């Protein structure tokens, strides 16, 4: 008993001294598991509802077209928004789009906030936010854990960590998908990060959110939202959303948009509400008092507004950080099931492991192959058995020789088929479209270790490591030999460069690539994906370059290419030359995310590929 009472007194002394000093105790270690820091702050738990006493008409998918006053959108975001058509919401993948923070606080439904505490220590592990509309499901970790690496998937809610600063809860969120600043066409890019400050006064909570978006904002956007606590749980929390075909018979390469300068609704909001058009066009200047002075000269204001409706200024390069860790090391990320992504040596590498040998998709640039082999060795106790090349490009095949040599394909050794393959028993078996082999052999000097097990137009399939693995040739996309690989049980699709998160598609027209084939290939992928909820989760995608995604990013990429195709096609029809098309900056709204002004694959070379594809469509019309 004496020991226990002494313990109580010591505990009281410990707690009180910590509070007197104004500091949380340093994190201590439990048995086996590190404990997070002690946190102490305002309790936000309860049921809440959005207060519409401000920004009343702007909740959820609302706001008039071209109602962007007070948003520090940059020129690229403005032309994106001007091109956006509300009909785009009929595109299947757009129908159940999730809500990103902080826009998710503008929904007219119910919100619940609660705390997750460790059942043993009662320490605060996380604060959870649930929003009825789109079933927003956010976890704000309070235990000091780090944010995931840049190549990890994004979600609509993102990854959030929090801390108390006095009586204010401050939440930092990264890994957010492309969403809305306002759901009338103003995008928030997937490079955006958000800081939210939650301030509670009685039954009201004010959220000051600051969005930093290097892609679509010219300066951080700060804005408040209000929640009011509900005295009783409303018992209305779900939002069942399944997409469907809303326009029967429509082709899957149709994406509604307005050509630059042809949005018919651009004046509607301004005229109806007697707002200067320059104000309605948004921009950082509209957030500050001086703007009222600027629009006193109505004629000059109108002229300035019109000048903002078309792309202007020099070409822009991507402002989104490259998620690839180019630090000389190979980084391993568990994607799903038995599939991992290895990144750091050129194109991404996928590895499936199990009781049989490792199944590898692409081998990287070959500069770090020893490290790649070493990392695969940590994942799989069996040697590499199969390698699939999604393309002949060196960033995908550069490591073929070393990875093949490090592997073995026991299925061929002593097999009836061993006579069919010159390299039987000499390492892993390399599989690829016949044109991958052909193109690699045509290189001067020929690239080492091309696929020896090749296919043409048919689906290639294997049952390996206890799951079905399908290889689908998608010719005339990036080249004439592209494939995607679907690990069915893990539900992971490896796309090669048909899809990347880092640049415009590297359409290699000279080697059989085409815009039309690229759009078909993306639609093929989308026909095989399923999201888990509101365009999050489900089938995961390992792109040729960049971070892990799911179908949302693939659909966005497809939509972008369709929109650019339609713009270029319209100018071709009007008789424009390639130079005129380049000058028109038809990709201005996407250059800040995918463009390049230097290097091997610039925006100009991409536009040339689009132009060439449309002027001289490829003969192959594979309908995959």
């Amino acid at each position, binding site marked *: 008993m*004496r020991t226990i009472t002494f313990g109580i007194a010591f505990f009281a002394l410990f707690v009180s001294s910590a509070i007197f000093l104004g500091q949380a105790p340093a994190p201590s270690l439990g048995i086996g598991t590190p404990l997070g820091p002690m946190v102490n702050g305002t309790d936000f738990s309860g049921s809440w509802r959005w207060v519409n006493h401000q920004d009343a008409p702007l909740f959820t998918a609302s706001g008039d077209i071209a109602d962007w006053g007070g948003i520090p959108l940059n020129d690229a975001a403005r032309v994106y928004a001007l091109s956006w058509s509300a009909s785009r919401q009929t595109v299947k993948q757009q129908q159940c789009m999730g809500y990103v923070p902080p826009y998710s606080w503008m929904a007219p439904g119910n919100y619940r906030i609660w705390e997750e505490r460790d059942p043993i220590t009662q320490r605060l592990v996380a604060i959870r936010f649930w929003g009825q509309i789109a079933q927003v499901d956010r976890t704000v970790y309070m235990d000091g854990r780090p944010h995931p690496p840049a190549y990890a998937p994004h979600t609509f809610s993102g990854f959030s960590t929090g801390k108390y600063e006095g*009586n204010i809860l401050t939440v930092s969120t990264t890994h957010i998908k492309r969403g809305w600043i306002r759901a009338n066409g103003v995008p928030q890019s997937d490079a955006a990060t958000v800081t939210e400050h939650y301030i509670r006064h009685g039954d009201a909570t*004010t959220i000051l959110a600051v969005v930093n978006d290097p892609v679509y904002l010219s300066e951080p956007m700060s804005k408040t939202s209000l929640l009011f606590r509900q005295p009783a749980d409303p018992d209305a929390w779900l939002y069942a959303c399944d997409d469907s075909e809303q326009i029967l018979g429509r082709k899957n390469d149709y994406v509604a948009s307005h050509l630059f300068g042809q949005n018919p609704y651009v004046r509607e909001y301004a005229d109806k509400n007697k707002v200067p058009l320059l104000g309605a066009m948004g921009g950082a200047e509209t957030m500050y008092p001086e703007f009222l002075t600027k629009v006193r000269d109505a004629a000059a204001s109108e002229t300035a507004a019109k000048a903002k409706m078309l792309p202007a200024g020099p070409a822009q390069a991507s402002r989104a950080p490259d998620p690839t860790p180019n630090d000389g090391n190979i980084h391993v990320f568990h994607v799903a099931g038995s599939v991992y992504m290895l990144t750091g040596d050129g194109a991404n590498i996928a590895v499936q492991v199990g009781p049989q040998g490792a199944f590898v998709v692409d081998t990287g640039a070959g500069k770090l192959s020893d490290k790649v082999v070493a990392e695969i060795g940590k994942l799989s106790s069996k040697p590499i058995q199969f390698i699939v090349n999604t393309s002949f490009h060196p960033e995908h095949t550069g490591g073929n020789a070393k990875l093949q040599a490090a592997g073995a394909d026991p299925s061929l050794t002593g097999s009836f088929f061993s006579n069919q393959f010159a390299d039987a028993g000499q390492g892993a078996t390399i599989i690829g479209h016949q044109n991958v082999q052909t193109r690699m052999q045509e290189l001067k000097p020929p690239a080492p270790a091309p696929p020896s097990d090749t296919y043409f137009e048919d689906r290639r399939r294997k049952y390996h490591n206890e799951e079905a693995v399908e290889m689908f040739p998608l010719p005339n996309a990036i080249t004439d030999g592209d494939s995607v690989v679907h690990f069915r049980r893990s539900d992971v699709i490896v796309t090669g460069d048909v899809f990347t998160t880092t640049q415009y598609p590297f359409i290699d027209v000279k080697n059989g690539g085409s815009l039309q084939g690229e759009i078909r290939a993306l639609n093929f992928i989308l026909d095989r994906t399923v999201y888990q909820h509101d365009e999050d989760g489900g089938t995961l995608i390992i792109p040729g370059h960049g971070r892990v995604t799911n179908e949302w990013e693939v659909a966005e990429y497809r939509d972008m290419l369709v929109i650019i195709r339609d713009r270029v096609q319209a100018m071709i029809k009007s008789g424009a030359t390639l130079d005129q098309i380049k000058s028109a900056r038809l990709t201005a709204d996407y250059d800040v995310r995918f463009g390049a002004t230097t290097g091997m694959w610039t925006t100009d070379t991409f536009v040339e590929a689009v132009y060439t594809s449309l002027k001289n469509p490829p003969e192959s019309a594979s309908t995959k």
Partner: protein
Amino acid sequence: MSRPLLVLFVVLLASLNGYAQGRGGGRGAAPPAARAAAPFDMTGYWVSVVTEDWRWRMFPNKGDYAGVPLNAEGRKVADAWDPAKDEAAGEPCKAYGAPGIMRIPGRFHITWQDDQTLKIETDAGKQTRVFHFGAAQAAGGDLQGVSKAEWEFTGPGLGFAIAGARGGGPQSGSLKVTTTNLRSGYMRRNGVPYSANAKLTEYYDVVKEANGVTYLVLTSTLEDPTYLTQQMITAAHFKKQADAAGWNPAPCAAR
């Protein structure tokens, strides 16, 4: 439990509980001056960041009272708004009273008038709001009314906890300002009315971004049994300026 340990335990708990009741002095001690007790410094120049209610704050139109829980009488008054009549009556400042002024785009200069009085001057409309800590100092009846201020420190709430009362620590708190004795005016610059019966409750908080930007966050609740069907809650925020750049005093404008 041995007696010495029991005494130690009780002393610790008592001191803890006493501390958690907030700063401002214990029983019998004179409270420190409001300026000395401030949990944050909100003096300096601040500029409106007009990202909320942009349309209504920048370019308000007659009859546009979206979001305002006006009752029928309030709508009637708003629909009858005639700025020319206000000008003719020498009343161009009716939108610049306490319930409206903080949402008018402009700059705000906050200073301590004395140890117990915080002052906010506005360049838009050249208004002055005075927040009195302690006893009220004026009779009111004008556009800015009488504003009673207090630091609201995060406390433990009711009940008794043996340890670990939730709160934000000794530097945590907000400025609460309650304004009454107002003369009737407009909460927006388009004639949306509040009455002399209105009561305005404001909370001021300061947040600092990692990049060094400091924001003043204002949460306002307006209660007005004459023109509102329910209390109206809004927020606004302001960015801290290094100096008086942009300070541009201008008279009230009725339209």
